[in-house]
């Protein structure tokens, strides 16, 4: 990659070197590395700020809200939102989208109980604390997917309280995906009418629509809101994401907050104007077909990594169509070298776009060598 460091202070030049090297080496974090948005550099001299709701008029015009709306529309179509019943905005990442989904659920069902599996990302507990929401943790299966029997038994006992289901579409360690259609069916069987399902599709949101079979995760499957990350599978130099929700829900809470004289239903108010441009550029370049190819390449690379590890006697595994390859925890030296996330005796590689097969081979050789020496 070309670099222009003319006039850059030494500290920044050194940081750029270190960050570039660290970027080249990581294999264990779900972040794409094959992007270059320097064509947008001129926007760095403009105070872009997408104040408030991207669908509301504003007198402030130094923004990218028109393109943000296109981005939101693209993802609404991708996640099979009903025509005219979707709303959303570009967030600072998946966690803000999850916070938004839970906030919306709490406003709709103030007495509701949140159910989430034990494999749920730590930020969700933080969000529940922040929103002061009642919650019950549900067991997870080995795959990372929620334990449906435990969920069913728990819902059955609390049938009188509106459930707010926080579904994982790709858990952090194993990429387990909860089946939203199955959860909806469970609610129907229990005759629970007032319920809310948030789909945390931070990692898999932009991948899942292109998998065969398509995982049940979106609006057509029964989600009320969906959070997706932009900097993970799509790739961005700035953390970002998209949150989508059924418009009917957002309109209900918009009315409830109207008493404070504010129609802004977003979380932060002042919002990043650059990240919508980054996402807009990415989807304009890739389109649905580009994303499909990208998903297929990543899945193929995960298949390769899994089979190579197994060929060398390492009991690697992954969930169907997952990009995450799980194997017994590797020593600290390797975790550091390849930035491999490790928990509960397992490490993983995530084959995100931009990971070179050579790098993967080198890492696998290290893992095999370490195991041989153990």
């Amino acid at each position: 990659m070309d670099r222009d460091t003319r006039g850059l202070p030494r500290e920044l030049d050194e940081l750029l070197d270190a960050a570039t090297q660290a970027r080249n080496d990581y294999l264990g974090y779900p972040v794409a590395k094959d992007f270059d948005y320097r064509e947008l550099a001129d926007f760095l001299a403009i105070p872009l700020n997408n104040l408030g709701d991207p669908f509301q008029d504003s007198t402030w015009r130094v923004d990218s809200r028109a393109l943000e709306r296109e981005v939101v529309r693209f993802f609404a179509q991708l996640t099979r939102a009903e025509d005219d019943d979707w709303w959303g905005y570009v967030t600072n990442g998946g966690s803000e989208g999850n916070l938004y989904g839970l906030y919306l659920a709490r406003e709709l069902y103030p007495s509701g109980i949140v159910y989430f599996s034990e494999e749920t990302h730590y930020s969700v507990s933080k969000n529940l604390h922040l929103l002061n929401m009642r919650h019950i943790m549900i067991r997870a299966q080995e795959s990372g997917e929620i334990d449906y029997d435990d969920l069913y038994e728990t819902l059955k006992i609390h049938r009188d309280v509106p459930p707010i289901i926080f579904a994982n579409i790709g858990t952090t360690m194993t990429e387990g995906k909860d089946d939203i259609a199955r959860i909806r069916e469970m609610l129907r069987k229990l005759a629970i009418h007032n319920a809310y399902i948030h789909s945390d599709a931070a990692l898999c949101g932009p991948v899942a629509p292109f998998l065969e079979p398509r995982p049940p995760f979106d609006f057509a499957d029964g989600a009320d809101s969906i959070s997706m990350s932009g900097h993970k599978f799509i790739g961005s130099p700035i953390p970002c994401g998209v949150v989508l929700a059924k418009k009917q829900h957002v309109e209900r809470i918009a009315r409830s907050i109207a008493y404070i004289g504010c129609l802004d239903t977003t979380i932060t108010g002042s919002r990043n104007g650059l990240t919508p441009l980054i996402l807009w550029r990415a989807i304009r370049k890739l389109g649905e077909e580009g994303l499909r190819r990208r998903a297929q390449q990543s899945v193929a690379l995960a298949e390769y990594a899994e089979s190579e590890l197994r060929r060398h006697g390492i009991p690697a595994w992954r969930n169907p169509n997952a990009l995450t390859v799980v194997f017994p925890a590797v020593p600290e030296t390797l975790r550091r070298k390849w930035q491999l996330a490790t928990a509960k005796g397992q490490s993983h590689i995530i084959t995100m776009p931009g990971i070179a097969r050579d790098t993967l081979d080198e890492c696998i050789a290290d893992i095999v060598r370490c195991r041989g020496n153990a």
Partner: protein
Amino acid sequence: MKRITVIAADRLGLIADLSEMLERAGINIDTIDAEEDHGTAYISLQVDRYDDTLALLRDSEYQAVPEEVLVIRIEDRPGGLARISRRLAEGGVGIRGMAMLQRANGWCAVAVTSDDNALARQILADVLMEQL
């Protein structure tokens, strides 16, 4: 003095490792009690620097629970937490949160936060793990 409960997979040297970690941070342990149950260790601590200890444990491999949170032990089977929450609801206790801390050998350690801990303790006396 307030108590902290540490929950971890039981292993040889666990208490020694925990004590050394606190000692390195200059934290004095006033009392320490431990109990093993189906592969899970429940360690109750009273220390001279409560908040610092919680922060240190939070950043380490240990699950640490402050005094305001009840720790119970239940069988690890579907609906286990649901039954506990129903008992609390029927006893007039509002649940703020229930989270699994450790699952091992068919048993599960659970943290419970409620709006009335005194009453919750009475209701859950048979499964409470913090009275070491």
